[in-house]
């Protein structure tokens, strides 16, 4: 399925206000020569790759730019750039007087805020965005229930973060490679991963693309450009930078996009990824779902910075803070971020403020460590799905009838999908040994042969329904 996001780039005049304290604005026209094939020969390229994408034009320049320095006595000519002297002994404050503002265009009631600044989206896209958000809600309810009934071993919901999932996916192109954490199944849904495919993964059956090798919710699909979820927090971030570098080398009009939580930003991988992305000028979009909690750890115990966006600035990365429960704002920010990432070959950091309105996972009861009223307020008052619904209804694009029809259809499809997934065979024995290596070595053949012999000789020691 092609990304619908591709057909709606009609906005013309909006310039995003990314946090950028460098004199070079985001409109710095590096991209002019990106698409100019002559640039390869005309630029005196000393970088190891014969691609103009490797002209690190801005590097170094940005730190020099402290204005005209005719009076060199007030300036230290440091290898990393010129730095002005001051006789004032002043420690940089750990925080600025005002926190970074949060970009939002729809108010709590789904009404556009006056002087709003967002990308126009078509009815078709808006309706698909809304219906996918609603589908995600139904999917969460039903899979959660299935786990509670003991039919799958584990599940984790996206409740409260539907807008981040779907709106970001809608603003991306299908070719953009996704490096998820685990609370972003909506991106796959947007790209056409079917309810049956979700169910097959959660049940780890024969039809699962992961061949039953990964825990539930560790979705992955090459054909949807979605890298399989990794359990170890934040490891996907450097991977996304590496893949973005590969895209850059290939001169592709695509970027990588990695999602992660507020908790994930504490891992060293987050810091390495941001720094490398900046230095390598990699076309990667970092989307942090700052949902206030990492299991039971509140953000105040996780970090003392003004959230995540400020860190992007410290690493020299364009950054913006967005209301993650405002689907339109999210769409607009990601759409703009993508343009910058690809046209200017630079990383972007988006901090989406939201709230994990469900428990961390089926192994968690979050009422033990946070007030029920807090959860309720976010769940009801700040629900991104109903907020967006109000907006599309006001546009005349959605109705109660459409709502009822959509939810009942999806519910039925899901229940069917679960039944099918549950009845499907488990992966056969051969799948246990395949893919450890590209070509299985002899010791694995030997192991498999020995296992089959053992089962044949001692069938009483093994489950009867084992797919041989």
């Amino acid at each position, binding site marked *: 399925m092609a990304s619908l996001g591709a057909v709606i780039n009609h906005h013309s005049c909006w310039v995003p206000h990314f946090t950028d304290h460098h004199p070079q604005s985001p409109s710095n026209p590096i991209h002019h020569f990106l698409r100019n094939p002559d640039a390869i020969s005309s630029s005196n390229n000393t970088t190891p790759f014969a691609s103009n994408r490797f002209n690190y034009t801005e590097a170094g320049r940005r730190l020099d730019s402290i204005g005209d320095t005719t009076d060199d006595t007030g300036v230290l000519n440091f290898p990393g750039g010129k730095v002005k002297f001051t006789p004032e002994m002043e420690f940089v404050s750990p925080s600025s007087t005002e926190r970074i503002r949060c970009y939002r265009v729809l108010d709590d009631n789904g009404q556009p805020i006056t002087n709003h600044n967002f990308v126009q989206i078509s009815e078709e896209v808006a309706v698909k965005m809304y219906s996918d958000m609603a589908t995600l809600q139904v999917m969460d309810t039903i899979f959660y229930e299935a786990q509670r009934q003991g039919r799958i071993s584990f599940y984790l919901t996206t409740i409260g973060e539907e807008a981040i999932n779907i709106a970001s996916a809608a603003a991306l192109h299908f070719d953009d490679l996704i490096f998820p954490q685990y609370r972003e199944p909506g991106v796959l849904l947007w790209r056409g991963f079917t309810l049956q495919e979700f169910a097959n993964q959660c049940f780890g059956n024969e039809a699962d693309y992961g061949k*039953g090798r990964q825990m539930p919710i560790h979705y992955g699909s090459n054909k949807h450009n979605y890298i399989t979820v990794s359990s170890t*927090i934040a490891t996907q971030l450097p991977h996304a930078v590496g893949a973005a570098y590969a895209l850059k080398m290939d001169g592709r009009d695509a970027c990588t996009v990695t999602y992660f939580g507020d908790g994930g930003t504490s891992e060293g991988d987050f810091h390495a990824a941001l720094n490398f992305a900046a230095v390598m000028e990699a076309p990667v979009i970092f989307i942090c779902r700052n949902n206030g909690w*990492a299991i039971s750890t509140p953000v105040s115990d996780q970090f003392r910075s003004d959230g995540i966006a400020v860190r992007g600035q410290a690493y020299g990365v364009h950054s913006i803070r967005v209301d993650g429960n405002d689907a339109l704002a999210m769409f607009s920010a990601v759409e703009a971020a993508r343009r910058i990432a690809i046209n200017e070959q630079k990383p972007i950091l988006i901090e989406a403020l939201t709230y994990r309105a469900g428990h961390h996972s089926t192994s968690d009861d979050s009422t033990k460590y946070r007030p029920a009223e807090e959860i309720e307020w976010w769940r009801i008052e700040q629900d991104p799905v109903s907020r967006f619904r109000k907006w599309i209804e006001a546009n005349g694009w959605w109705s109660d009838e459409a709502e009822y029809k959509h939810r009942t259809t999806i519910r039925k499809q899901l229940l069917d999908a679960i039944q099918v997934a549950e009845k499907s065979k488990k992966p056969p024995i051969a799948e*246990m040994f395949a893919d*450890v290596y590209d070509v299985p070595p002899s010791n694995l053949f030997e192991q498999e042969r020995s*296992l089959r012999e053992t089962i044949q000789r001692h069938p009483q020691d093994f489950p009867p329904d084992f797919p041989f």
Partner: protein
Amino acid sequence: MLGIVRQRIARQGINASGMRIQSLVCASRDYSSAAKEMTVRDALNSALDEEMSADPKVFLMGEEVGEYQGAYKISKGLLDKYGPERVRDTPITEAGFTGIGVGAAYYGLKPVIEFMTFNFSMQAIDHIINSAAKSNYMSAGQISVPIVFRGPNGAAAGVGAQHSQCYAAWYSSCPGLKVLAPYSSEDARGLLKAAIRDPDPVIFLENELLYGESFPVSAEVFDSSFCLPIGKAKIEREGKDVTITAFSKMVGYSLKAAEILAKEGISAEVINLRSIRPLDRAAINASVRKTNRLVTVEEGFPQHGVGAEICASVVEDSFEYLDAPVERIAGADVPMPYAANLERMAVPQIEDIVRAAKRACYRSVPMAATA
């Protein structure tokens, strides 16, 4: 199963070291005069509690150990009792709190570092290997590192490759570290207390599936002075026909296998290793010299595993006592699959131990018919 990797020992092998074990130390005292029961979780919790109360330098640090009381509730009640300075919730930075723990140990504190699972200790392994394990040596004894790294290790159920690996062999290959793996509540209590009191860095490998299990414990185990020696195995069940070595959850499986074997007239001796490094070679060799047969059991990968080391030790020291090839049972040589049917095939089962023991006793089909 699949986990079985058959180890045949070349008959012409010569003991490289020429060493013979003189003293056949029986590793453990017998606390079996037990009346009360205790879960492994409570055993660990009470050990932590008592050591924290006895020594103000002991503190606990890790993800979710305070407010949440530990991902598996091992630190229940400790935050209330000792406060947030001694029960320290951390950001999600394993490399951070491991390194910070090592630094605190350099300067006289006795940190107990909890990993949500040892799989996540991979994020921090440099601090464990290059800092914790080597500092005492590199500083010629000037910097000791009295630290404990603990948490669940090995396979749980239905959690896939990145949550299921056993790191016993990894850590026990590194000099400077001590590696313990409790099975019962008695082990958990006695060994954790020993680990916290020990001046060296200790890797303490728990098992998620054992936390909720209850074991009978004697009055002595309940005593706050109770402590087990590091480096000593325990004979969990005496026998004369075949020795089965195991650690952690596999001890329970081996004991069950021994019961089945007993019904068929085979008397199996089950050794609970307790300490993987130092390894109680004396106890293992003494048992093999008595039974003349050996089956090693572990959940980890076979290559360079704990079983491989035990086998080498027996070949070196008791070769001429062996009446049958050593049988090595290990996890399958593949990353852990999730699907329940494949997962079952990837870890040792009781039946696998029974069959291996019978083979060692020549009680099953001829050798040629493998497995």
